[in-house]
């Protein structure tokens, strides 16, 4: 048989307390456990004096080098061994260098059939007038793909290490970023960069686009563009560069460039491994639209490198876009 409990009786029961605890209204430990503030340490003055003396003696024993004979001996020996090791290294390296084949000599291991093939058939097989670009972006494109990914991974590491997320309402301090005094409006720097930045970026684009025709390529052109962007940033401040290059731009650009590289390269790997004739024409050597995929790969590498260089600089400056 059930009977109705009065409210006071019910409140004493365990089930009531359980229910309240589940609902989060009551903490079962609230009145049973309490943190006691730590009592202040008190010592007799004599004992404290003795303790301090002992500590000082111990520190002196470790840090005063003039009294510490083993440390002194170690320092002397360390210097002697340093110099000896440097000389040993220099002599070893010089001996190793003396065994290298002399520059440009025939009948040396460097002049084997691999380089002969690159030189003789490079233009015919890759369509690139610049043999170096033909080598790094066609014969050895897999290495270059890894290189671009290493750059991307380096940016990610810099992001992890240097990124500084501001909480809402928090203001920049001079310690954390040097953006506080922007815009600095240095007239000389602004005028010079107005004149210099467009040619620098144009030259970078030229180096990227003509990578298969003359000296240059994605990496160097991207670095030139990155340097131009950094100069512009220094002259005009973050407010202007954020309009066209934000974190989102960097993400989209680098990920799409790396993906494009992977796609283009996997196509040529697929056709090459299965002995299928590639659809992409090599074009006439010397024309800007020639040499198959090399131009696309150059542009991809250039975009990744330019974004990476700029992002490095921004991360070092203020830890975030």
């Amino acid at each position, binding site marked *: 048989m059930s009977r109705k409990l009065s409210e006071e009786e019910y409140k004493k029961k365990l089930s009531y307390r359980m229910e309240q605890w589940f609902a989060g209204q009551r903490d079962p430990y609230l009145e049973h456990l309490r943190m006691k503030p730590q009592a202040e340490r008190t010592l007799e003055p004599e004992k404290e004096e003795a303790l301090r003396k002992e500590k000082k003696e111990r520190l002196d024993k470790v840090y005063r080098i003039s009294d510490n004979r083993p440390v002194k001996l170690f320092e002397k020996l360390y210097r002697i061994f340093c110099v000896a090791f440097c000389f040993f290294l220099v002599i070893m390296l010089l001996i190793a260098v003396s065994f290298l084949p002399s520059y440009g000599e025939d009948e040396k291991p460097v002049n084997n059939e691999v380089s002969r093939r690159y030189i003789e058939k490079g233009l015919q097989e890759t369509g690139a007038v610049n043999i170096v670009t033909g080598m790094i972006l066609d014969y050895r494109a897999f290495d270059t793909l890894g290189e671009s990914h290493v750059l991307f991974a380096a940016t990610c590491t810099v992001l992890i290490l240097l990124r500084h997320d501001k909480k809402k309402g928090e203001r920049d301090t001079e310690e954390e970023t040097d953006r506080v005094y922007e815009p600095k409006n240095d007239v000389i720097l602004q005028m010079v960069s107005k004149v210099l930045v467009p040619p620098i970026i144009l030259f970078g684009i030229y180096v990227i686009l003509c990578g298969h025709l003359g000296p*240059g390529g994605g990496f160097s052109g991207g670095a*030139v563009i990155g340097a131009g962007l*950094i100069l512009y940033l220094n002259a005009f401040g973050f407010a202007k560069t954020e309009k066209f290059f934000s974190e989102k731009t960097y993400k989209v650009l680098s990920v799409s460039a790396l993906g494009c590289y992977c796609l283009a390269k996997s196509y040529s790997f697929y056709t090459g491994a299965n002995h299928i004739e590639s659809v992409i024409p090599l074009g006439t050597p010397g024309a800007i639209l020639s040499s198959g995929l090399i131009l696309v790969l150059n542009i991809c590498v250039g975009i990744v490198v330019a974004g990476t260089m700029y992002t*490095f600089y921004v991360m070092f400056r203020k830890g975030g876009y």
Partner: protein
Amino acid sequence: MSVFTDILLLFLVVCAVAASLSKNLLNSILIFMSYSLVMSIIWILLESPDLAITEAAVGAGITSLLFFVTLKKIHAIVESDRKEKKDE
């Protein structure tokens, strides 16, 4: 031509030693920059213009820029300025 190359190589060695021995970090970076520039000229003389462009852009340009920013972050540049002001 070979005399010119020898002078450049000698300059390279001098730069390398000076960069490691210089007490001021800013000077050391500037010396490193000039090292990279001379290195890029040597790359051209060795007939590899691709490497020369990369060396000039990365070695002399971006690496030194990152070094400068790092020095500013650790207040190495500012403090030397203050010292100069005190001397005046």
